[in-house]
């Protein structure tokens, strides 16, 4: 069981939604489509499902061309961002409906529905109508219906986006469990890098209708092929600073010089963009060897236990993630630092030339 897209593209009203894409999803793999809103995640997923027809290219399922095949005849299931259930049916009948259409025996259907209900904690509300249960339960019901069929390809289009924070956390950890139990190919669209890492498997990063990179989640996270991928795979987006490489080392706009060690030693002289993730920005006591900057604080955002600092440094706007709740005033000067070993280097075509070789601190994304 594998899904292969060959040069698949989608153009709507003269606007290219998906540039020709090639991708192979292997049997029993978890694949995360990661990209900001309107990057083409949903469009790509609809092409995979067969809900939309590609303008060019072919789609193969187990080496059979399924490009024009009706969705009814495909081996797929889909969960939407909206909670889609049949309002006139009970939760039980919702889960049972695809099984009934597959002409299973009543006993088989009942066993499967109860198994799915157990797996998704719906047993106590099997008799309720979708309108009578909470949003989280509605989405569980939709997932149960999708998984009950036991199909080869399960598509989930931001299934947790419409849930509140608590429920999202709760359901998020269940998805790997459901995935393992199903043995299907999963395709999961999300805007959050954190979710992509948590689910693991493969990540395909999308940007303006293009798949910029596809590979194991950690490989893409640690070695984004270009600046766009790096930006997509960082939340908040990666910060950039323009640097100059010459014989002496790597020079920052304010004149600071750091030695070009490791991979950076091998890159030719010239102008590069150095990028780093928000959590690599440091304040307070800097580690030895850190590059230091005088930053001006624009605004602070407090999240539950961390603080986002929006600072301006030499005309660039950076976002830093600092643990703990910090109380700073907007407009105040802050000394900040960067560990040079956390820097990614991109050339003028935005291609990655050097990535940090140390294992990246995985606690924060």
């Amino acid at each position: 069981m594998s899904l292969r897209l060959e040069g698949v593209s989608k153009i709507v009203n003269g606007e290219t939604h998906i540039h020709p894409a090639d991708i192979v999803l292997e049997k029993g793999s978890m694949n995360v489509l990661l990209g900001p809103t309107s990057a083409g995640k949903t469009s790509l997923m609809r092409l995979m499902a067969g809900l939309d027809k590609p303008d060019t290219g072919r789609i193969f399922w187990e080496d059979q061309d399924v490009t024009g095949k009706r969705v009814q005849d495909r081996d797929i299931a889909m969960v939407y961002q909206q909670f889609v259930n049949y309002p006139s049916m009970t939760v039980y009948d919702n889960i049972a409906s695809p099984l009934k259409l597959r002409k299973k025996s009543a006993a088989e259907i009942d066993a499967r529905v109860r198994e799915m209900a157990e797996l998704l904690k719906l047993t106590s509300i099997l008799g309720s109508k979708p309108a009578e249960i909470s949003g989280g339960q509605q989405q569980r019901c939709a997932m149960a219906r999708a998984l009950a069929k036991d199909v080869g390809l399960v598509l989930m289009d931001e299934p947790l986006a419409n849930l509140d924070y608590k429920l999202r956390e709760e359901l998020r950890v269940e998805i790997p469990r459901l995935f393992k139990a199903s043995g299907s190919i999963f395709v999961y669209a999300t805007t959050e890098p954190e979710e992509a890492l948590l689910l693991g498997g493969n990540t395909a990063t999308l940007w303006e209708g293009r798949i910029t990179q596809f590979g194991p989640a950690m490989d893409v996270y640690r070695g984004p092929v270009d600046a766009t991928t790096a930006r997509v795979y960082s939340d908040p987006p990666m910060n950039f600073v323009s640097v100059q490489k010459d014989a002496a080392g790597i020079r920052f706009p304010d004149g600071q010089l750091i030695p070009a060690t490791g991979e950076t030693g091998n890159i030719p002289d010239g102008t590069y963009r150095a990028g780093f993730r928000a959590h690599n920005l440091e304040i307070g006591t800097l580690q030895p060897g850190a590059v230091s900057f005088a930053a001006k604080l624009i605004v602070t955002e407090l999240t539950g236990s961390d603080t986002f600092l929006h600072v301006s440094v030499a005309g660039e706007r950076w976002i830093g993630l600092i643990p703990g709740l910090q109380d700073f005033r907007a407009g105040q000067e802050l000394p900040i630092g960067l560990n040079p070993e956390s820097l990614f280097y991109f050339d003028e075509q935005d291609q990655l030339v050097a990535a940090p070789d140390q294992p990246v601190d995985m606690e924060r994304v």
Partner: protein
Amino acid sequence: MSDKPAKRKRRSGSRLSILVMIAYLAFLLVPIYWLVIMSFKSNAEILGMFTLFPENFTLDNYRTIFGDPSWYMGYVNSFIYVSLNTVISLLVALPAAYAFSRFRFFGDNHLFFWLLTNRMAPPAVFALPFFQLYSSVSLFDTHIAVALAHCLFNVPLAVWILEGFMRGVPREIDETAFIDGYGFTRFFTRIFIPMIAPGIGVTAFFCFMFSWVELLLSRTLTSVEAKPITAIMTRTVSASGLDWGVLAAAGVLTIIPGAIVIYFVRNHIAKGFALGRV
């Protein structure tokens, strides 16, 4: 303490609004009340004196209607063509409205608007062509003739109302059903129709009502066999003058079906008046 004056004010305000409401209701109900009491009076009482209640309560007027086929067949005829019309309108409008709500096709917006403009022409305009056409294909004086003629304004209305209700159903439901393996017909009847059931009820009500009250086309296209009650009522001038009591009874009986139908769709009627776009 502090909210007491406000409360008192609100109470006096509500007393005024109750008065206004009662006055308005009375104003609306006077003609209906008058019709109802007339139907229980004899002609002599109606013409001879001014009474707020029937002095000599009588059911003779109703007896006349239920005993005379030329009267009660009017109701039967009306009921037959109105039901036919409602069924035809719904059967035609359901797929049409689905197409308008789900697909983009050449000229869809223009067609959709044009449908509504059909309602802007007075039925009198269509009386002549329908009369001539139905006479020449020997449909004249049949129930189906009136039912088809009424489709002229009921189908566009039904499409408009249903489209509004259907637009409220997310497209993802259709897609999920297709992915689950539903064929179109099965999806439409098992999942989609139950979801827009209130819309169908409201649409049926409007079709029923407009067809029931329409006089001109139904009178022009019938003579004996399919003559509707509204036509009979307007022709009841006998040699002895108007039969007031019987006419009033017929009027009461004409209001009842509408009142029954509206009872079933009362919760959705406002949305229907907004053509489903609330």
